[in-house]
């Protein structure tokens, strides 16, 4: 009569142990969905920021922008070019 009692008791202990482990495990990962959601939102925001910054960098490094900025700062187009080079040998002239 003793053996079945031990067997049943052992089973109950095992079930309770596993149940506890599952509760602990489920509890520990229960917030990962929220975390994951946050991370995904963060990635999306960073991607958007990156795209906006990329657009801004390209706009401000375009020749149109640089030309208009230079004109507004008083820069003027160079009308002559000075070339420093060795004179041609007389024989070649």
């Amino acid at each position, binding site marked *: 009569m003793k053996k079945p009692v031990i067997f049943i008791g052992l089973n109950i202990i095992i079930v309770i142990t596993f149940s506890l482990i599952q509760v602990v495990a489920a509890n520990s*990962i229960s917030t*990962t*969905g*929220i975390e*994951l*959601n946050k991370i*995904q939102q963060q990635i999306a925001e960073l991607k*958007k920021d990156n*795209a*906006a910054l*990329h*657009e801004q960098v*390209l*706009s401000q*490094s*375009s*020749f*149109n922008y640089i030309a208009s900025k230079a004109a507004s700062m008083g820069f003027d187009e160079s009308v002559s*070019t000075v*070339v420093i*080079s060795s*004179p*041609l040998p007389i024989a070649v*002239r």
Partner: protein
Amino acid sequence: MSWRYRFVLLSFCIFFLVIIIRLFYWQSVKAGELSALGESQYGKDVKLRPVRGEIRTSDGFPLASNKLSYLVFANPKEIKDKNIAVSLLSPLLSADPASISALLSLNRYWVALNRSVNNDTKEAIAKLNLAGVGFDDHSVRFYPEASIGAKLLGFVGKDESGEDTGYFGLEGYYDRQLRGKEGIATQIHDALGRPILAKSSNSSGEVNGRNLNLYIDRVLQYVLEDELKAGVEKYGAKGGMAAMLDPKTGGILAMASFPSFDPRSYAEFANEDYKDSFITDTYEPGSTFKPLVMAAAINEGLVKPETRCDTCSGPVSIGGYSIKTWNNKYQPNLTMTDVIVHSDNTGMVYVGKKLGLDKMIKYIDLFGFGRATNIDLQGEVIPSLRPRDSWYPIDLATSSFGQGISVTPIELLSAFATLANKGVRMEPHVVSSVETADGQTLTIPPKVVNKPITEKTAKIMTEILVKAVDKGEANFAKTKGYRFAGKTGTAQIPVAGHYDPTNFIASFIGFAPAQDPKFVMLVIIDRPTSSIYGADTAAPVFFKIVQKALTYYNIAPTETEIKN
């Protein structure tokens, strides 16, 4: 064993058999359907739209990139006070209040208020906290250099199924490479819609579009467009076009034509404005064709630069037609060099006769006329040539000075580049390499088409063309200190069986520096009103571009002005 036991055993067996059959039905026969049903409850499929590839100049700067744009939508049934919503939204969306009001009055759950607003507008609308108004982001084309290179690029529009599709130019030609491949992502979520870390969450199939790296030099493109536009306005022309090509590789360094369009608002322009005239328009090249005919005759050993023309003392009569020089002045015993320098039509008729019809047709073919240049832009037109048996003596004569033969500007530029590349003709190309989504670069090697003339002929022609610039009508516009090889052209326009007596196409084609050409360029001014001559209109534009290009390339002058 009593029958009762047997009955119970049999009942159990039947019972378990039914369960096994039912399980088999659900787990094997209906497995796919149930799995899909399950996934639809806990998972969500999202279409992953690929990012369209960039189009970059030789310095890596994108002429066409991408940016985020937002679709503003509303659920009219959720908006309580429509008048307030209209008054708040219409100024931000730059829309007529009546049209916003009409949209919000519709008996629908979803209406698009604006399909493309920028981030600032989206943020401003979001701050209003209007119930029933939402946003959907998507990627759209962005042009950092505005309309520079518009005709080269083409534009991205929608096809019949509403998908982004490239039209015209590079967007059209390389559409399949640029658009990439759509993928699908599955995200598993909980009952509240929050994502769960699960094995079945995945994304597959998405491949972003490939980037195109061009031969186009951003500086040269900017300079060429700027000067060409100024030239078209200055000379009161109907339009203009120009392109610069590296004769050694066939790479297009810059290309533009006017009138043009703005790819950011392409729908506001006429269809005619989308075409790149440099590859789609045909015209009679006039005197810019003469160097090619002369090169053919020299290559065949029929004439030399010092050969004298014995039929140049007056107009030449052929088949009832009288062929005159452009200024009706005649110089007997002109040398072949002088024929090109003074752009003498009678001298070219002499060369044409020497060459004969068969060789003329042979060289027209060798220089690539009547064939596609295979430039990698959508819409290249191939002008047809007259069949061999339809050539009359007058056709041979007029073709020798560039009339009665139709070409596209790209055909002429490609053929002329042969003179600058030791007689070797290269295939013109805009894209130098393609960059895949995983960063691999696929180089497109320069392609040799053929060698119509020898290196010696190319050198002789170069020297003749240098004299044509130094002593010809365009000399006043020349940038001092450099050796240029070039030729002016003033072509008549055929209209309904005759030539238009009032309108002309002025052009200048040449390369620099003559001793080691960095580029070949063709400038065409369409129907200028201030002067009809190429020397007065196209040549100054050519030399203005060249002067800046030589400075940009750090090429020092090689000739010193000697004053005696």
